[in-house]
């Protein structure tokens, strides 16, 4: 068993479905952080069998919207002075900007560089979002 020391301050992203940890790591851009970041994969879990887990020792604000898209079942634990101060369950965001790409090959966003495309949630079950320009359903 590998031991990772207890977090003093920062965020623990727990209950990540095994295999999704690296996706979350990449999407949050954690490789660019100067702070200590630990990605643990296939950690034994009573509830899930095995899970992934990320510990981030940082003060900076992270946009966690993306987590709701990749794995809405994860738990976010905020830690300060070695103690858990807040626990959050994620929900799918109603509006997403800058993460999704429209999958419609005829959408104008495929032909022009558009930075601020909004996607609106249309189906929580399938995690599908609607492109603000062409209305096509798309998912992460």
């Amino acid at each position: 068993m590998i031991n990772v020391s207890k977090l003093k301050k920062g965020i623990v992203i727990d209950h990540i479905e095994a295999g999704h940890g690296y996706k979350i790591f990449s999407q949050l851009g954690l490789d660019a952080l100067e702070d200590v970041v630990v990605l643990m994969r296939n950690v034994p879990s009573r509830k899930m069998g095995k899970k992934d887990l990320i510990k981030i020792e940082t003060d900076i604000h992270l946009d966690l919207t993306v987590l709701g898209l990749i794995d809405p079942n994860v738990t976010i634990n905020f830690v300060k002075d070695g103690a858990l101060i807040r626990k959050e369950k994620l929900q799918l965001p109603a509006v997403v900007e800058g993460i999704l790409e429209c999958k419609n090959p005829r959408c104008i966003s495929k032909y022009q560089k558009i930075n601020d495309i909004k996607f609106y949630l249309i189906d929580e079950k399938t995690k599908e979002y609607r492109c603000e320009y062409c209305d096509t359903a798309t998912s992460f």
Partner: protein
Amino acid sequence: MLKGRHLIEPSEFSIDELEEIFGLADSIIQKPEDYSEICKNKLLASLFYEPSTRTKFSFDAAMLRLGGEVIGFSDPNTSSVAKGETLKDTIITISNYVDIVVVRHPQEGTAKLMAKYALVPVINAGDGGHQHPTQTLTDLLTIRHYKKSLNNHCIAVCGDLKFGRTIHSLVKAMHRYQDVKFIFISPEELKIPRYIKDLLEPGSYFETTNLDKVIGKADILYMSRVQRERFVSEYEYLRLKDYFILTPEKMLRAKDDMIVMHPLPRVNEIAEEVDSDKRAVYFHQAKFGMYVRMALIVKLLGLE
């Protein structure tokens, strides 16, 4: 208040706002001479990034009959697009010259993108297979004229329901009226997209591949063209284009007061023999199109 607004998709206007436009269209039809100078000194930019005869002529005729002027292009190769200018830059620049912009573009969502940056009202004259709201206004005005109301109808739409933007816009607009039911008639490959069906109450529509069986139920039959440019291969186009053709024999099973509509141009989906049937209103529909565009321009410019 419609002054300064864009028209990107028909549902952006409330039923009352649409009624305002239709009311003005009625007045223009009754006394066109009263409106022949209302747009004097106003300029409309007509930006057609893909070929269109009817829609372009309809808008041009509408503006000219209101006493306004039209500038623009109907071939993007002659515009700054050919130099690689972005749509954002194009619309910001053109907004400085004109009072209102009409845009048609083959890519879906273009009019919405342009409206985001435009300083003057933008009218979507068709964006790929997505929306064609002024065709919808035309269709609604036609239905309102012949059926005296936009409520309580069974509308059968037939043909290419997957790529047919006029169909998408029509369904989105009509589902807001009371007790409107839809019959979607298409080959399996050209079924209506899910995002349109998601707007409708379950039980307010059904899908079929057989025009013959359902024609007797319809108050309005809306025929559409299977468009060559929407298909990946010529083979697929040729295989599906003749799928559903309206003939005088099929019309025998239709109600006496059913109306047949078509956005035009027709290829062969309505036999020419049907043209003389009093229920065939598709050529009158084109005229309503010009009047409703006149009313729309006047309203968006805030001149009435």
